[in-house]
């Protein structure tokens, strides 16, 4: 076991942690914004999966990774538009809508995968991986250079999204309105501002980020697409928001913790240690449940989360 924790391996694990954490961060930040507006979007998993597939498919057909990522975001946003319409305008049960969207994404992506990409055969379609883009100078820093500064640009985007989100929430006018929205939508309404408009925009943003996260899983870290490739990461994003107590910096920490578990598991498997790796595979999910058991005394969940707002209520 002690041979496992060599310097190279530790650095490799940490670098993988950052890379694996990127889609989790993206999806969680998107979900954070939606939840801060008071809408709990349970369809993140489905939106991520849609983004994952569309990213792969469009990249495969057009050869352009950028087009693929764009398509992923648009596709996921369309799904979130449906979610927004049903939850905000129609004020339907948010649980059922989210679940239905997940199942829709599962069904559609599987069907399109089988029918549009000739997969019945021996060769699997694949694409070129998004290139790594080490940042000059910074990537030469010992240790940190490899861990943080030698990834593809989607990873940098994910990392940057945290301070940007923080800045948005705490230093801008719209961020302030958003923070009020989830806690007490009436406060926003009584100031004469449109609650519905802000909620729509927040949910659409969440969808876009979920799509981006999904695209990363296919285009940004793998050369092929596998059905159900997202493997519950969308659900983990929801847990990460809760575990991070709805604050960007803690969400980053929570995401990295889950990513670390997966990175660790990957390396254990690769190195070939005789250990039931399934336990490690299951670990993130179990940890998620344990994390939820220990909710802080003062949970910063938006007070009005999941409640459809109506002026006459």
């Amino acid at each position, binding site marked *: 076991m002690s041979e496992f924790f060599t310097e190279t391996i530790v650095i490799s694990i940490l670098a993988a942690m950052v890379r694996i954490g990127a889609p989790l961060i993206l999806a969680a930040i998107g979900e954070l914004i939606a939840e801060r507006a008071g809408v709990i979007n349970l369809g993140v998993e489905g939106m991520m999966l849609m983004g994952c597939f569309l990213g792969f498919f469009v990249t495969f057909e057009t050869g352009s990774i950028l087009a693929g990522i764009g398509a992923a975001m648009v596709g996921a946003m369309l799904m979130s538009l449906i979610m927004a319409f049903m939850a905000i305008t129609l004020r339907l049960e948010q649980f059922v809508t989210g679940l239905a969207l997940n199942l829709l994404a599962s069904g559609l992506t599987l069907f399109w995968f089988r029918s549009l990409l000739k997969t019945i055969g021996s060769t699997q379609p694949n694409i070129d991986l998004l290139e790594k883009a080490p940042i000059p100078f910074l990537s030469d820093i010992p240790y940190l250079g490899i861990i943080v500064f030698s990834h593809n640009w989607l990873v940098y985007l994910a990392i940057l999204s945290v301070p940007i989100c923080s800045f948005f929430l705490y230093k801008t006018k719209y961020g302030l309105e958003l923070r009020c929205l989830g806690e007490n939508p009436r406060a926003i309404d009584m100031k004469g501002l449109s609650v519905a408009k802000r909620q729509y925009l927040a949910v659409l943003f969440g969808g876009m980020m979920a799509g981006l996260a999904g695209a990363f899983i296919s285009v940004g870290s793998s050369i092929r697409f596998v059905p159900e490739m997202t493997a519950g990461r969308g659900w983990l994003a929801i847990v990460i928001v809760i575990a991070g107590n709805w604050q960007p910096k803690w969400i980053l920490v929570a995401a990295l913790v889950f990513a670390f578990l997966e990175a660790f598991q990957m390396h254990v498997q690769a190195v070939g240690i005789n250990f039931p790796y399934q336990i490690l595979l299951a670990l993130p999910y179990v940890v998620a449940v344990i994390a939820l058991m220990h909710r802080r005394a003062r949970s910063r969940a938006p*007070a009005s989360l999941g409640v459809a707002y109506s002026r006459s209520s």
Partner: protein
Amino acid sequence: MLEQLQIKNLTKRFGTVIANDRVTFDVRRGEIHCLFGENGAGKSTLAECIYGTYRPESGAICFNGELVEFNSPRDAIQLGIGMIHQHFVLVPPLTVLENIIVGTEDAKVLLNTQKAENKFKELCARYELKLNSHAAIWDLSVGEQQWVEILKALYLDVKFLILDEPTAVLTPEESDKLFRILNVMKRQGISIVLITHKLKEVMQSDRVTVMRKGKIVNTVDTKSTTREQLTHMMISSEIAVQGLKKQINSESTVVQIKKLDVRGPRGGYAVKDLNLTLNSHEIVGIAGVAGNGQKELFETLVGIQSPESGEVWLDTEDITHWSPAEILAAGVGHIPQDRYREGLIGQLSIVDNLLLGMHRSPRFAQRGFLDQERVRAFVQEQVDQFEIVAPSIDTVVGNLSGGNAQKVVLARELFQASVVLLANQPTRGLDISIADYVHRQLLEKRKEGYAILLASEELDELIKLSDRIVVMFKGQIAGEFDAENPDLEQIGLLMAGGNL
């Protein structure tokens, strides 16, 4: 022009309920004008129409001489109208400054906190308010929270401010401070409409308009009227004296409440040091505006809430911490204040609703299986007896009229209760004939020996039914009266906090 706001023949309906009935009302520039009346009189609705939250069905609103039509508060805010609601519209985790500046035209993108701080400091100085702009709302006292609400309006250079029951949750010192602030505002030329049911505040205004049941009773100069006259205007002038109630001698003490302290939702005490006895063959009426602790008292008696200290005794048993199921089994019935939220299951049928609470009793359930025939026979009996109007006993309760829905609650509770009945606003929102029906049922049970606790905002109802009347104000019993010859003026005064 003298009148800043003029309202002519304004009518606002909610479904079949007429909340404001051809209201004609005006407010002069720079005056403090009180809207006075009991709960349900229509004061808040009128205010929300002025603020743009609701659109009236008919009538005209003129502000500064011009006809206006508001689609949302945004329109009213832009004309300089502000409103401070009874339930604060603040965001507890955020700071004072953030609550004030959110949504204002202060910055394009970035928050310009420096400018806001300066304006904040200046306003605080002018109105003699001491507030830390960076304190979080949930760390402030209720009084301080209200100052934040006021500052929100002042920050937007409000010219016309409506306050809805502002002192409902304040201590006397905080109320005094509020009035000092209002007077400073008045000197600045801001017109103030103060909605209240408290006489002490009314007497500090320039003019007062009394409302009752959606209509305007009168508008008078405060200096030329008295407390007694105002109370008279507020309460219904015809008190039906009726011989329905016969004198009965109570035989025993059934319920004893000793030194009860119950915490309220906002952390303070909803019920404080309350002592009360209920005897058999007796109806004890609780007079008082809703929100003075009646709900918490009833919930404690039913077992939903646990008191912080004190005791509740039923006969010889200490039921202070009993569960709802145990209290139900002991023969205590409860007609809740909010019939749809707490008393009925709107999506289920009359049958299912009447069964609630008895679904495991041996009468209807054997070894876990419900005897549907017995249940239905019982329900049909109750529906006939109580004359519940419905297409069938399988009709969903949500589709019944308010009166019939209440009859379902009544039928169930009267059947399940055997010693005590707790009735909290049992005739709220019901029309006369159904209310009368409820009254007769209660008197019937009184004759049978039940101990009944009745909370109501309608004094006539209490006088008609009660043997004794207690007044509840801010969680305490302010006074007790014999219902035979009640001193109405005194009761009204106590209800309005008059002795404080």
